């Protein structure tokens, strides 16, 4: 089920979401071996950052809530990792975040020199005091950060959006106009909160956290559907996917590739191969190709 994406050939349309596992070359390589067409590193920021205290990730059964808090060694503090990654034989997305347009630009420019296949800018993380989210909810700041980053990198640019934006399709359009090569939607939903009634305290140390997993899938599908109507660039559809049928639904909403994060919890690291196989079986049973169903939900009669 090979697919073309921004000039690269991927073995299948499955994408590892940023923030899941992607801490080292070794583990990214294993995720690729376990059936993932495109793997994403954990978001890289401008300064070393530990993230939040635990509890940071809780499984609620129907999905997860997390406030890991963007831990990063810092972009200048990863030389060994880049050296390892130079020798990779799999396509790679490097995710980048910052606290200002200048920081995004500085980190992205540096990361671009390390030659990942793509750069994704995270303008949508709800889990830190100042990083990212503010850019993704406002059209002007989204435009500014995308156009600034686009100027200084020489690999294709993916922009990861938040469902917190009042009109996510408008943000996507602004990003496309500012030079984005693809959209990734969505980041976690919320923030939400879980309170332990015995201790009377929020369970997460950061108190609030982003929701992911099966419970957010309808929101993700709606966002991808809205974005597909407004942009011509490809969309990585992400949010609550853990089965082949979920992935087919994302493609019908308009996604070109399908990301998985929390699905690793529910079906193991080989969830990527499982979902790719299930998609393939579904397509075979229906005598259809991926291209034929992409955006199918937008046609009035479904055909």
């Amino acid at each position, binding site marked *: 089920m090979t697919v073309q994406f921004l000039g690269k050939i991927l073995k299948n349309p499955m994408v590892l979401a940023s923030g*899941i*596992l992607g*801490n080292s070359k070794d583990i990214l390589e294993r995720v690729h071996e376990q059936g993932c067409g495109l793997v994403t590193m954990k978001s890289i920021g401008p300064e070393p950052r530990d993230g939040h205290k635990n*509890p940071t*990730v809780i499984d609620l059964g129907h999905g997860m809530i997390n406030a890991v808090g963007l831990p990063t060694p810092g972009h200048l503090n990863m030389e060994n990792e880049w050296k390892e990654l130079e020798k990779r034989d799999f396509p790679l997305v490097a995710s980048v975040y910052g606290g200002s347009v200048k920081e995004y630009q500085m980190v992205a420019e540096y990361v671009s020199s390390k030659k990942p296949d793509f750069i994704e800018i995270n303008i949508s993380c709800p889990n830190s005091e100042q990083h990212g989210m503010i850019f993704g909810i406002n059209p002007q700041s989204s435009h500014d950060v995308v156009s600034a980053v686009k100027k200084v990198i020489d690999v294709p640019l993916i922009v990861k959006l938040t469902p917190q934006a009042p009109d996510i399709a408008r943000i996507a359009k602004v990003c496309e106009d500012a030079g984005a090569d693809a959209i990734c939607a969505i980041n976690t939903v919320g923030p939400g909160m879980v309170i332990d009634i015995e201790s009377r305290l929020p369970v997460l140390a950061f108190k609030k956290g982003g929701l992911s997993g099966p419970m957010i899938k309808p929101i993700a599908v709606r966002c991808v559907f809205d974005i597909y109507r407004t942009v011509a660039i490809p969309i990585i559809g992400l949010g609550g996917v853990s089965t082949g049928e979920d992935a087919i639904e994302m493609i019908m909403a308009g996604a070109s590739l399908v990301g998985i994060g929390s699905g690793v919890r529910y079906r193991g690291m080989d969830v990527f191969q499982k979902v790719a196989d299930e998609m393939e079986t579904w397509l075979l049973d229906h005598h259809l190709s991926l291209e034929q169903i992409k955006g199918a939900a937008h046609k009035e009669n479904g055909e």
Partner: protein
Amino acid sequence: MNTITDQKHIMLRVEEKKVESEMFATLFFQYALSFVPGQFIMVWIPGIDEKPYTISYHSQDRFAITIEAKGIFSKKAVTLDKGDLVGIRGPFGNGFDIHSGEKVAVVAGGCGMAPLATLVEQLDKTATVIHGARKKPYILYPDRFDIERDFCTDDGSFGHKGFVTDLLEKQIALGNHFDRVYTCGPEIMMYHVFNICEKHHIPCQVSLERYMRCGFGVCGACVCGKQVVCKDGPVFGSDTLRKMKDFNTKALLKSGKAVDLSLYFSWRCQ
């Protein structure tokens, strides 16, 4: 698809506290925990932090964790007492692979005895248990088991003066045959135990420790080479260890930065 189960914290009150020595305290809880020796739980002290702990005592309706007072969390944990509230998630991880009828050796170093204790209780009296520590107060549960132990301390304050690896080598040299060796303790010690096992073609099971967040194989904080310690481990067998280049060499700090193990452990013990 696997059944999705809620993994929010189960809130429990400390039922009993036992001070093991000046270094260790054990907290008992009244709760039926389904558990295999070697697995761990995430323990949350509301308002403080959440850390992985092994189950050190286990029966049908009761379990315990044993804490060595080292860092901010553990120094708080040893002050907890009867009635205090903690949250637990888990158990997580794979646990030890136990084969009935085998002649085995258990090699424990310092607080590495805690995850091995429930395993030792399942073994018959033919098992060899080698137990070492820096000095006497670090010998955990000195009077606990029916099986006799070979003790050693670095300073000779309890048992033989020297290392657990000396005692394991000696047992093998005396002609004792082992079908399997289980070990937990400082990583450098486990690395030497593993190498002794390799030299003598004995399958070995090692319980590793890394900084953890989720406990269920998603966040990537505890990756060690291609393995995810919380999900694929914490117990790893010889086949995996042979290929694990980060074993006894590297670990990730909280930021995700990979560093030499000595730097990692000096950070963990702050």
